[in-house]
Protein backbone atom coordinates (compact mmCIF):
# COMPACT_ATOMS: atom_id res chain seq x y z
CA UNK A 1 0.00 0.00 0.00
CA UNK A 2 2.81 2.31 1.01
CA UNK A 3 4.72 1.45 -2.15
CA UNK A 4 1.67 2.18 -4.29
CA UNK A 5 1.30 5.62 -2.70
CA UNK A 6 4.95 6.36 -3.41
CA UNK A 7 4.52 5.31 -7.04
CA UNK A 8 1.46 7.56 -7.49
CA UNK A 9 3.36 10.54 -6.03
CA UNK A 10 6.31 9.77 -8.26
CA UNK A 11 4.20 9.65 -11.41
CA UNK A 12 2.51 12.93 -10.48
CA UNK A 13 5.82 14.65 -9.88
CA UNK A 14 7.25 13.40 -13.16
CA UNK A 15 4.23 14.54 -15.16
CA UNK A 16 4.24 17.95 -13.42
CA UNK A 17 7.85 18.52 -14.41
CA UNK A 18 7.11 17.71 -18.06
CA UNK A 19 4.12 20.06 -18.16
CA UNK A 20 6.14 22.96 -16.73
CA UNK A 21 8.87 22.36 -19.31
CA UNK A 22 6.40 22.86 -22.16
CA UNK A 23 5.83 26.58 -22.93
CA UNK A 24 2.65 27.78 -24.56
CA UNK A 25 3.12 30.73 -26.93
CA UNK A 26 0.76 32.98 -28.87
CA UNK A 27 1.49 34.85 -32.09
CA UNK A 28 1.37 38.62 -31.43
CA UNK A 29 2.14 40.01 -34.89
CA UNK A 30 -0.51 40.37 -37.59
CA UNK A 31 0.93 37.29 -39.31
CA UNK A 32 3.90 35.02 -38.61
CA UNK A 33 5.75 32.81 -41.02
CA UNK A 34 6.61 29.30 -39.87
CA UNK A 35 9.98 28.36 -41.39
CA UNK A 36 11.45 24.94 -42.03
CA UNK A 37 14.78 26.00 -40.52
CA UNK A 38 15.73 28.61 -37.85
CA UNK A 39 16.93 31.11 -40.44
CA UNK A 40 15.59 33.93 -42.59
CA UNK A 41 17.10 32.02 -45.52
CA UNK A 42 14.80 29.07 -44.94
CA UNK A 43 11.78 28.27 -47.05
CA UNK A 44 8.39 29.09 -45.53
CA UNK A 45 6.39 26.13 -44.25
CA UNK A 46 3.19 28.07 -43.65
CA UNK A 47 1.83 31.32 -42.25
CA UNK A 48 -0.22 31.70 -39.05
CA UNK A 49 -2.32 34.63 -37.85
CA UNK A 50 -2.30 36.74 -34.68
CA UNK A 51 -3.52 34.80 -31.65
CA UNK A 52 -2.40 31.43 -32.99
CA UNK A 53 -1.52 29.24 -30.00
CA UNK A 54 1.21 26.63 -30.01
CA UNK A 55 3.41 24.61 -27.69
CA UNK A 56 7.10 25.31 -28.04
CA UNK A 57 9.42 22.37 -28.33
CA UNK A 58 12.46 24.47 -27.58
CA UNK A 59 14.42 27.55 -28.53
CA UNK A 60 17.23 27.89 -31.05
CA UNK A 61 18.82 31.32 -30.90
CA UNK A 62 16.19 33.84 -31.92
CA UNK A 63 13.75 31.15 -33.05
CA UNK A 64 11.07 29.13 -31.28
CA UNK A 65 10.78 25.50 -32.36
CA UNK A 66 7.14 24.59 -32.87
CA UNK A 67 5.12 21.60 -33.95
CA UNK A 68 2.45 22.10 -36.57
CA UNK A 69 0.39 19.08 -37.53
CA UNK A 70 3.04 16.38 -37.81
CA UNK A 71 5.98 18.59 -38.72
CA UNK A 72 8.42 20.78 -36.87
CA UNK A 73 9.04 24.38 -37.82
CA UNK A 74 10.40 27.65 -36.44
CA UNK A 75 8.84 31.05 -35.67
CA UNK A 76 10.85 34.21 -34.96
CA UNK A 77 10.82 34.83 -31.22
CA UNK A 78 10.17 38.53 -31.90
CA UNK A 79 6.63 37.68 -32.96
CA UNK A 80 5.39 35.70 -29.97
CA UNK A 81 4.68 35.95 -26.23
CA UNK A 82 3.44 33.60 -23.55
CA UNK A 83 0.13 35.45 -23.19
CA UNK A 84 -2.68 35.91 -25.73
CA UNK A 85 -2.48 39.25 -27.63
CA UNK A 86 -3.84 42.17 -25.63
CA UNK A 87 -6.45 44.38 -27.37
CA UNK A 88 -5.30 47.71 -28.82
CA UNK A 89 -4.96 50.20 -25.98
CA UNK A 90 -6.69 53.55 -26.46
CA UNK A 91 -4.95 56.82 -25.90
CA UNK A 92 -4.50 57.74 -22.24
CA UNK A 93 -5.44 61.39 -22.01
CA UNK A 94 -7.26 61.30 -18.72
CA UNK A 95 -5.87 63.86 -16.33
CA UNK A 96 -4.17 65.77 -19.13
CA UNK A 97 -5.14 69.01 -17.41
CA UNK A 98 -3.75 67.72 -14.16
CA UNK A 99 -0.52 66.80 -15.89
CA UNK A 100 -0.18 70.27 -17.43
CA UNK A 101 -0.90 71.79 -14.07
CA UNK A 102 1.70 69.42 -12.64
CA UNK A 103 4.28 70.70 -15.10
CA UNK A 104 3.66 74.28 -13.99
CA UNK A 105 4.02 73.18 -10.39
CA UNK A 106 7.05 71.11 -11.15
CA UNK A 107 9.78 73.21 -9.53
CA UNK A 108 8.26 73.37 -6.06
CA UNK A 109 7.03 69.79 -6.18
CA UNK A 110 10.45 68.50 -7.06
CA UNK A 111 12.19 70.62 -4.48
CA UNK A 112 10.03 69.30 -1.66
CA UNK A 113 10.18 65.72 -2.93
CA UNK A 114 13.93 65.91 -3.29
CA UNK A 115 14.31 67.37 0.17
CA UNK A 116 12.18 64.61 1.60
CA UNK A 117 14.52 62.10 -0.02
CA UNK A 118 17.54 63.86 1.45
CA UNK A 119 19.12 64.87 -1.87
CA UNK A 120 21.99 67.31 -2.04
CA UNK A 121 21.52 70.93 -3.06
CA UNK A 122 22.94 70.12 -6.48
CA UNK A 123 20.62 67.15 -6.82
CA UNK A 124 17.64 69.28 -5.89
CA UNK A 125 18.63 71.91 -8.43
CA UNK A 126 18.90 69.27 -11.14
CA UNK A 127 15.57 67.70 -10.28
CA UNK A 128 13.79 71.00 -9.97
CA UNK A 129 14.90 72.46 -13.27
CA UNK A 130 12.08 73.56 -15.53
CA UNK A 131 11.85 71.59 -18.75
CA UNK A 132 9.51 72.69 -21.49
CA UNK A 133 6.76 70.25 -22.43
CA UNK A 134 4.78 70.67 -25.65
CA UNK A 135 1.34 69.12 -25.20
CA UNK A 136 -0.18 71.02 -28.10
CA UNK A 137 2.09 69.27 -30.63
CA UNK A 138 1.58 65.98 -28.81
CA UNK A 139 -2.17 66.35 -29.31
CA UNK A 140 -1.57 67.02 -33.02
CA UNK A 141 0.52 63.83 -33.27
CA UNK A 142 -2.08 61.83 -31.34
CA UNK A 143 -4.84 63.04 -33.64
CA UNK A 144 -3.07 61.79 -36.77
CA UNK A 145 -4.76 58.73 -38.27
CA UNK A 146 -4.25 56.74 -41.45
CA UNK A 147 -7.31 56.17 -43.59
CA UNK A 148 -8.84 52.71 -43.60
CA UNK A 149 -6.87 50.34 -45.84
CA UNK A 150 -4.01 52.83 -46.39
CA UNK A 151 -1.44 50.79 -44.45
CA UNK A 152 -2.46 47.54 -46.13
CA UNK A 153 -2.13 49.16 -49.59
CA UNK A 154 1.31 50.54 -48.66
CA UNK A 155 2.47 47.09 -47.49
CA UNK A 156 1.13 45.52 -50.67
CA UNK A 157 2.92 48.09 -52.86
CA UNK A 158 6.14 47.45 -50.89
CA UNK A 159 6.32 43.79 -51.86
CA UNK A 160 9.06 42.94 -54.33
Amino acid at each position, binding site marked *: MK*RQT*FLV*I*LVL*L*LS*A*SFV*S*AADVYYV*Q*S*VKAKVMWEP*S*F*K*SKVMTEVAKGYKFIALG*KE*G*NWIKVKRDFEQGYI*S*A*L*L*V*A*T*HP*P*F*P*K*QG*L*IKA*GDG*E*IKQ*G*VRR*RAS*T*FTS*AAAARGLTQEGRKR*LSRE*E*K*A*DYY*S*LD*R*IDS*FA*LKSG*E*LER*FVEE*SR*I
Partner: protein
Amino acid sequence: MKRMGTLIIAVLITVSIAPSASAAAEREANWRQRVSTADDVVASDISEEIKFGREVAARILGRYGYLENPQLTKYLNLVGRSIAMHTSRPELEFRFALLDTAEVNAYATPGGYVFVTRGALEKMTDEAELAGVLAHEIAHITEKHVVKELNIRSSEATGVTGLALLIGGGSEAAKVTLNQLTDKAVDILFKDGYKREDEVQADKHAVMLCSLAGYDPQGLVRYFERLNTVKGKSTEILDKTHPSYEARIAWIKSVITEEGMDAGSYAAHKERFARNRELR
Protein backbone atom coordinates in the same frame (compact mmCIF):
# COMPACT_ATOMS: atom_id res chain seq x y z
CA MET B 1 16.12 -3.51 0.80
CA LYS B 2 13.74 -0.94 2.23
CA ARG B 3 16.59 1.60 2.44
CA MET B 4 17.50 0.92 -1.19
CA GLY B 5 13.90 1.48 -2.27
CA THR B 6 13.75 4.80 -0.42
CA LEU B 7 17.02 5.86 -2.03
CA ILE B 8 15.78 5.05 -5.55
CA ILE B 9 12.58 6.99 -4.95
CA ALA B 10 14.53 9.97 -3.58
CA VAL B 11 16.76 9.99 -6.65
CA LEU B 12 13.79 9.76 -9.00
CA ILE B 13 12.00 12.61 -7.22
CA THR B 14 15.14 14.77 -7.45
CA VAL B 15 15.49 13.99 -11.16
CA SER B 16 11.84 14.81 -11.77
CA ILE B 17 12.01 18.16 -9.98
CA ALA B 18 15.40 19.24 -11.28
CA PRO B 19 14.46 20.17 -14.88
CA SER B 20 11.67 22.55 -13.91
CA ALA B 21 13.73 24.11 -11.10
CA SER B 22 16.78 24.60 -13.30
CA ALA B 23 14.63 25.97 -16.13
CA ALA B 24 13.11 28.51 -13.76
CA ALA B 25 16.55 29.51 -12.48
CA GLU B 26 17.84 29.85 -16.04
CA ARG B 27 14.86 32.00 -17.02
CA GLU B 28 15.50 34.29 -14.06
CA ALA B 29 19.24 34.51 -14.67
CA ASN B 30 18.86 35.27 -18.35
CA TRP B 31 16.00 37.72 -18.21
CA ARG B 32 17.97 40.43 -19.98
CA GLN B 33 19.44 38.07 -22.52
CA ARG B 34 16.13 36.66 -23.62
CA VAL B 35 15.19 37.08 -27.22
CA SER B 36 12.14 39.15 -26.45
CA THR B 37 10.73 40.57 -23.25
CA ALA B 38 7.15 40.65 -24.46
CA ASP B 39 6.42 38.17 -21.69
CA ASP B 40 7.10 40.92 -19.15
CA VAL B 41 4.12 42.90 -20.43
CA VAL B 42 1.36 43.03 -17.85
CA ALA B 43 -2.13 44.17 -18.85
CA SER B 44 -2.56 46.56 -15.91
CA ASP B 45 0.74 48.29 -16.75
CA ILE B 46 -0.02 49.14 -20.39
CA SER B 47 -2.15 52.23 -19.76
CA GLU B 48 0.43 53.57 -17.31
CA GLU B 49 3.21 52.87 -19.80
CA ILE B 50 1.39 55.00 -22.38
CA LYS B 51 0.69 57.76 -19.84
CA PHE B 52 4.38 57.82 -18.88
CA GLY B 53 5.43 57.76 -22.54
CA ARG B 54 3.21 60.76 -23.34
CA GLU B 55 4.97 62.79 -20.65
CA VAL B 56 8.40 61.94 -22.05
CA ALA B 57 7.18 62.63 -25.60
CA ALA B 58 5.90 66.08 -24.56
CA ARG B 59 9.35 66.89 -23.18
CA ILE B 60 11.09 65.78 -26.39
CA LEU B 61 8.69 67.98 -28.37
CA GLY B 62 9.29 70.86 -25.94
CA ARG B 63 13.02 70.62 -26.55
CA TYR B 64 13.04 70.34 -30.34
CA GLY B 65 9.65 71.32 -31.71
CA TYR B 66 7.35 69.34 -33.99
CA LEU B 67 7.88 69.60 -37.73
CA GLU B 68 4.30 69.33 -38.89
CA ASN B 69 3.96 68.20 -42.46
CA PRO B 70 0.89 66.04 -43.19
CA GLN B 71 2.41 64.20 -46.18
CA LEU B 72 5.72 63.46 -44.51
CA THR B 73 4.02 62.47 -41.24
CA LYS B 74 1.81 60.09 -43.19
CA TYR B 75 4.86 58.58 -44.92
CA LEU B 76 6.74 58.15 -41.61
CA ASN B 77 3.69 56.43 -40.12
CA LEU B 78 3.27 54.12 -43.11
CA VAL B 79 6.90 52.98 -42.95
CA GLY B 80 6.92 52.79 -39.13
CA ARG B 81 3.62 50.96 -38.78
CA SER B 82 4.50 48.48 -41.52
CA ILE B 83 7.42 47.49 -39.25
CA ALA B 84 5.44 47.66 -35.99
CA MET B 85 3.01 45.11 -37.47
CA HIS B 86 5.78 42.57 -36.91
CA THR B 87 6.32 43.18 -33.21
CA SER B 88 5.08 41.43 -30.10
CA ARG B 89 3.21 44.52 -28.80
CA PRO B 90 -0.09 44.63 -30.78
CA GLU B 91 -1.74 46.51 -27.93
CA LEU B 92 0.32 49.63 -28.64
CA GLU B 93 -0.60 52.27 -31.22
CA PHE B 94 2.79 53.31 -32.56
CA ARG B 95 3.01 57.00 -33.57
CA PHE B 96 5.81 58.44 -35.67
CA ALA B 97 6.69 62.13 -35.97
CA LEU B 98 9.42 64.45 -37.20
CA LEU B 99 11.39 66.78 -34.91
CA ASP B 100 12.35 70.19 -36.22
CA THR B 101 16.08 70.18 -35.57
CA ALA B 102 19.29 69.82 -37.55
CA GLU B 103 20.61 67.44 -34.89
CA VAL B 104 20.95 63.87 -36.16
CA ASN B 105 19.05 61.51 -33.87
CA ALA B 106 15.91 59.51 -33.20
CA TYR B 107 14.03 58.89 -29.97
CA ALA B 108 11.49 56.47 -28.56
CA THR B 109 9.31 56.78 -25.49
CA PRO B 110 7.44 54.02 -23.65
CA GLY B 111 3.98 53.35 -25.01
CA GLY B 112 4.78 53.80 -28.70
CA TYR B 113 6.01 57.32 -29.59
CA VAL B 114 8.88 57.39 -32.10
CA PHE B 115 10.59 60.59 -33.25
CA VAL B 116 13.15 61.12 -35.97
CA THR B 117 14.90 64.45 -36.48
CA ARG B 118 14.97 66.50 -39.68
CA GLY B 119 18.78 66.25 -39.55
CA ALA B 120 18.66 62.44 -39.46
CA LEU B 121 16.20 62.29 -42.36
CA GLU B 122 18.52 64.50 -44.42
CA LYS B 123 21.37 62.01 -43.93
CA MET B 124 19.34 59.05 -45.24
CA THR B 125 19.29 57.97 -48.85
CA ASP B 126 16.60 55.30 -48.99
CA GLU B 127 13.58 53.85 -47.19
CA ALA B 128 15.49 50.83 -45.83
CA GLU B 129 17.75 53.23 -43.90
CA LEU B 130 14.71 55.01 -42.47
CA ALA B 131 13.13 51.63 -41.67
CA GLY B 132 16.31 50.58 -39.83
CA VAL B 133 16.30 53.70 -37.66
CA LEU B 134 12.57 53.43 -36.89
CA ALA B 135 12.93 49.69 -36.14
CA HIS B 136 15.77 50.42 -33.70
CA GLU B 137 13.50 52.83 -31.81
CA ILE B 138 10.56 50.41 -31.96
CA ALA B 139 12.80 47.76 -30.35
CA HIS B 140 13.58 50.11 -27.43
CA ILE B 141 9.80 50.31 -26.89
CA THR B 142 8.92 46.63 -27.30
CA GLU B 143 11.77 45.63 -24.99
CA LYS B 144 10.78 48.30 -22.45
CA HIS B 145 14.36 49.54 -22.11
CA VAL B 146 13.46 52.83 -20.38
CA VAL B 147 11.16 51.10 -17.89
CA LYS B 148 13.85 48.52 -17.11
CA GLU B 149 16.56 51.15 -16.85
CA LEU B 150 14.47 52.91 -14.23
CA ASN B 151 14.25 49.56 -12.45
CA ILE B 152 10.48 49.48 -12.36
CA ARG B 153 9.69 45.88 -11.57
CA SER B 154 6.51 44.06 -10.69
CA SER B 155 5.77 43.27 -7.09
CA GLU B 156 4.63 39.68 -7.19
CA ALA B 157 3.99 39.66 -3.45
CA THR B 158 1.24 42.27 -3.69
CA GLY B 159 0.01 41.32 -7.14
CA VAL B 160 0.26 44.98 -8.15
CA THR B 161 2.60 45.65 -11.03
CA GLY B 162 5.46 48.13 -11.29
CA LEU B 163 4.17 51.11 -13.27
CA ALA B 164 0.59 50.76 -12.07
CA LEU B 165 1.84 50.76 -8.49
CA LEU B 166 4.03 53.83 -8.97
CA ILE B 167 1.97 56.15 -11.14
CA GLY B 168 -1.50 54.62 -11.22
CA GLY B 169 -4.41 56.58 -9.76
CA GLY B 170 -4.60 60.31 -9.38
CA SER B 171 -2.90 60.89 -6.04
CA GLU B 172 -0.40 63.71 -5.52
CA ALA B 173 2.28 61.11 -4.77
CA ALA B 174 1.61 59.38 -8.10
CA LYS B 175 1.90 62.72 -9.96
CA VAL B 176 5.17 63.55 -8.24
CA THR B 177 6.51 60.10 -9.09
CA LEU B 178 5.40 60.47 -12.71
CA ASN B 179 7.28 63.79 -12.96
CA GLN B 180 10.38 62.28 -11.40
CA LEU B 181 10.33 59.26 -13.69
CA THR B 182 9.88 61.58 -16.67
CA ASP B 183 12.95 63.57 -15.61
CA LYS B 184 15.00 60.39 -15.33
CA ALA B 185 13.78 59.11 -18.70
CA VAL B 186 14.72 62.43 -20.34
CA ASP B 187 18.19 62.09 -18.80
CA ILE B 188 18.55 58.63 -20.35
CA LEU B 189 17.57 59.95 -23.78
CA PHE B 190 19.62 63.17 -23.84
CA LYS B 191 22.48 62.60 -21.42
CA ASP B 192 23.23 59.12 -20.14
CA GLY B 193 22.09 56.85 -22.96
CA TYR B 194 20.73 53.32 -22.66
CA LYS B 195 22.81 50.42 -21.36
CA ARG B 196 25.19 49.09 -24.00
CA GLU B 197 23.43 45.70 -23.96
CA ASP B 198 20.12 47.46 -24.69
CA GLU B 199 21.65 49.25 -27.69
CA VAL B 200 23.03 45.92 -28.94
CA GLN B 201 19.61 44.31 -28.56
CA ALA B 202 17.83 47.24 -30.27
CA ASP B 203 20.26 47.09 -33.23
CA LYS B 204 19.91 43.33 -33.60
CA HIS B 205 16.13 43.41 -33.30
CA ALA B 206 16.02 46.33 -35.74
CA VAL B 207 17.62 44.37 -38.57
CA MET B 208 15.43 41.34 -37.86
CA LEU B 209 12.30 43.53 -37.84
CA CYS B 210 13.41 45.09 -41.13
CA SER B 211 13.87 41.64 -42.59
CA LEU B 212 10.42 40.51 -41.37
CA ALA B 213 8.91 43.63 -42.97
CA GLY B 214 10.79 43.06 -46.24
CA TYR B 215 13.30 45.92 -45.88
CA ASP B 216 16.98 45.51 -46.68
CA PRO B 217 18.63 44.85 -43.28
CA GLN B 218 21.85 46.42 -44.62
CA GLY B 219 20.10 49.81 -44.62
CA LEU B 220 21.09 50.46 -41.01
CA VAL B 221 24.73 49.57 -41.81
CA ARG B 222 24.79 52.03 -44.72
CA TYR B 223 23.32 54.77 -42.53
CA PHE B 224 25.86 54.22 -39.73
CA GLU B 225 28.75 54.12 -42.20
CA ARG B 226 27.65 57.52 -43.49
CA LEU B 227 27.21 58.98 -39.99
CA ASN B 228 30.67 57.70 -39.06
CA THR B 229 32.12 60.29 -41.44
CA VAL B 230 30.11 63.14 -39.92
CA LYS B 231 31.76 65.04 -37.13
CA GLY B 232 30.45 68.05 -35.27
CA LYS B 233 27.60 69.43 -33.26
CA SER B 234 24.83 67.75 -35.25
CA THR B 235 25.76 64.28 -33.95
CA GLU B 236 27.02 65.34 -30.51
CA ILE B 237 24.17 63.80 -28.46
CA LEU B 238 23.98 60.71 -30.67
CA ASP B 239 27.74 60.11 -30.29
CA LYS B 240 27.64 60.73 -26.53
CA THR B 241 24.72 58.39 -25.81
CA HIS B 242 25.51 55.49 -28.15
CA PRO B 243 28.34 52.97 -28.66
CA SER B 244 30.79 53.65 -31.53
CA TYR B 245 29.59 53.18 -35.10
CA GLU B 246 32.38 50.64 -35.71
CA ALA B 247 31.10 48.43 -32.87
CA ARG B 248 27.47 48.79 -33.96
CA ILE B 249 28.24 48.00 -37.59
CA ALA B 250 30.23 44.92 -36.49
CA TRP B 251 27.44 43.39 -34.41
CA ILE B 252 24.78 44.23 -36.99
CA LYS B 253 26.80 42.54 -39.73
CA SER B 254 27.31 39.53 -37.50
CA VAL B 255 23.57 39.09 -36.81
CA ILE B 256 22.78 39.54 -40.51
CA THR B 257 25.08 36.60 -41.32
CA GLU B 258 24.08 34.44 -38.34
CA GLU B 259 20.36 34.81 -39.03
CA GLY B 260 20.61 34.23 -42.75
CA MET B 261 19.60 37.76 -43.76
CA ASP B 262 22.55 38.08 -46.14
CA ALA B 263 20.54 36.43 -48.90
CA GLY B 264 16.99 36.90 -50.10
CA SER B 265 14.95 39.61 -51.74
CA TYR B 266 14.80 42.78 -49.72
CA ALA B 267 13.71 46.27 -50.74
CA ALA B 268 15.33 49.70 -50.27
CA HIS B 269 12.62 51.78 -52.06
CA LYS B 270 15.05 54.56 -52.90
CA GLU B 271 12.74 56.39 -55.31
CA ARG B 272 9.74 56.30 -53.01
CA PHE B 273 11.91 57.68 -50.21
CA ALA B 274 13.25 60.51 -52.40
CA ARG B 275 9.74 61.36 -53.59
CA ASN B 276 8.38 61.58 -50.06
CA ARG B 277 11.31 63.45 -48.58
CA GLU B 278 10.88 66.13 -51.21
CA LEU B 279 7.49 66.89 -49.71
CA ARG B 280 9.14 68.81 -46.90
